[in-house]
């Protein structure tokens, strides 16, 4: 039956290129999405840079970066950004002081110690926490942490606002981010490494800290960097709870205005487009952007330096 066809030479295979409209459309679509993302980012950057250039044509960069008096709206205006930077540094440092140990602790617990059932409940709860609007956190900081806990209960010497309450609540806000992403990183470490460690007589704690943690380090650093970036860029909480007075912050119980706090405040005002006051917003925004960029670069360096890839 088949012998007849088998004996004739088979037709030359048709290997010509075929039109695949679906593929072409998909590729164009993805290219468009990627291009648009880059375009939007560049657009924002340009929108930041153009008014900033105008700003720096009137205010020398030196005076801006190292000046210690921030009074852009006063008659004898002064544009030293140092006070804003100190407030941002305080709130960020305080936030990280609480968020890094608690976030990493929660992540290690969930990934290395908790039963599967506990983890299945805890993880979504944490992720819901991450979704609470920051306004809510901000009011919580002013009305409860600052007014009730710090002043009424602990009788701390502090006013209506402080970088401590803002930073502390911001830390709480960041915990789920740090915990969730580092937990992902640690869960991704192959189980064979945990078994290898256990077979040598290591305890769970030793395995978690000496094998899993270093192996997951790049993911953990990424989590912390995201936390830092969120803390530096967080606006609502600091605008509400840290204070609106731009002054150099010398201690955690003092109030102060952060960079984002200034932008939020000033943007609500009625500064004329193109005025120096208006351009000030963008100069501070650009500075924020540069700081975040630097943090990212440092983190990439840290990861390259210390990572134990598996």
């Amino acid at each position, binding site marked *: 039956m088949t012998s007849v066809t088998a004996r004739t030479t088979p037709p030359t295979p048709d290997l010509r290129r075929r039109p695949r409209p679906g593929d072409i459309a998909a590729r164009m679509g993805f290219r468009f999405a990627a291009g648009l993302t880059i375009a939007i980012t560049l657009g924002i950057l340009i929108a930041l840079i153009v008014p900033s250039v105008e700003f720096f044509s009137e205010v020398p960069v030196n005076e801006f970066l190292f000046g210690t008096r921030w009074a852009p709206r006063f008659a004898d205006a002064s544009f030293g950004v140092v006070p804003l930077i100190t407030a941002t540094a305080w709130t960020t440092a305080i936030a990280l002081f609480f968020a890094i140990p608690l976030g990493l602790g929660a992540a290690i617990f969930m990934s290395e110690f908790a039963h599967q059932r506990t983890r299945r409940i805890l993880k979504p709860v944490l992720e819901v926490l991450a979704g609470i609007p920051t306004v809510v956190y901000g009011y919580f900081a002013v009305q409860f942490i600052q007014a009730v806990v710090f002043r009424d209960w602990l009788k701390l010497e502090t006013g209506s606002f402080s970088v401590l309450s803002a930073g502390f609540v911001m830390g709480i806000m960041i915990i789920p981010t740090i915990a969730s992403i580092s937990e992902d990183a640690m869960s991704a470490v192959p189980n064979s490494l945990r078994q290898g460690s256990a077979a040598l007589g290591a305890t769970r704690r030793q395995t978690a800290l000496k094998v899993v943690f270093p192996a997951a380090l790049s993911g953990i650093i990424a989590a912390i960097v995201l936390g830092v970036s969120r803390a530096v860029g967080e606006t609502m909480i600091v605008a509400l709870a840290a204070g609106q007075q731009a002054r150099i912050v010398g201690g955690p119980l003092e109030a102060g205005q952060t960079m984002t706090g200034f932008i939020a405040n000033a943007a609500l005002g009625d500064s004329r487009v193109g005025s120096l006051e208006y351009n000030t917003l963008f100069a501070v925004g650009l500075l924020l952007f540069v700081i975040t960029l630097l943090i990212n670069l440092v983190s990439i360096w840290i990861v390259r330096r210390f990572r134990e*890839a598996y």
Partner: protein
Amino acid sequence: MNDIRNTSVAPERTGSTNTIVHASARPSLEVPVLDCDSVSIFYDDFRAVHDVNFACLRNEITALIGPSGCGKSTVLRSFNRMNDLIEGARVEGAITYRGEDIYGPEVDAIEVRRRIGMVFQKPNPFPKSIYDNIAYGPRVNGMKVDSMDDLVEEALTRAALWDEVKDKLKQSALGLSGGQQQRLCIARTIAVQPEVILMDEPCSALDPIATLRIEDLMQELRNDYTIVIVTHNMQQAARVADKTAFFTAEANDTTGDRTGVLVEFGDTATIFESPHDKRTEDYISGRFG
């Protein structure tokens, strides 16, 4: 030295009554290093192996063979309580290490694993330097060592790896070949000076030359250690093992679950040349499945 409990005082264990010398094993006055007595192992409700009895003697190599899924790895893992890491895994019956029940209420699994080491099927070096891979075990165990460098060198030498890596101890272990990684894992196990080494198909990812090197190594290590090895390679079992245990899986008529059973245990020569059980003979001669 043999105290695997949390408490520090060990009761006299000589002449322990819970030691069974099996008919198939050569009669010996010595307490077996490892002894399973009616051992069944479950994963939740699933009975993976049923009623296993055999013993491993000091300075002998015992091979566990049998078709895939018959529970060899499960039995092996129960010897150093690695099953503890699997949620739902449970052991019934008694497994004793030098007469001491390793599942006893006071026993610390960490102490068991410290004395009964394990080498896995897939090499699993830590993503650390070669040196740190070896030093890790002694460090976590708080072993008092005069010189860590010497200990690392000794472990690597015993695992026949020293010459190949002595110039790159600070480099990542992941840069080694599969066979070198497996020898590194053996060296890492030796470094904590266990008494027993369990090996789960240690050569399955290796080429024939690397396999032979590991087999030579096992022969060498046998002088100081007791070794239990799982292997799918019949020649390997025949080459290296003193005793062989043949397992198979039997389907339950009602539930259809396949449960592993120990078919035959004895001197390797007997198992391979004149097995008593038809199933062993079929498997050995390749007539199985």
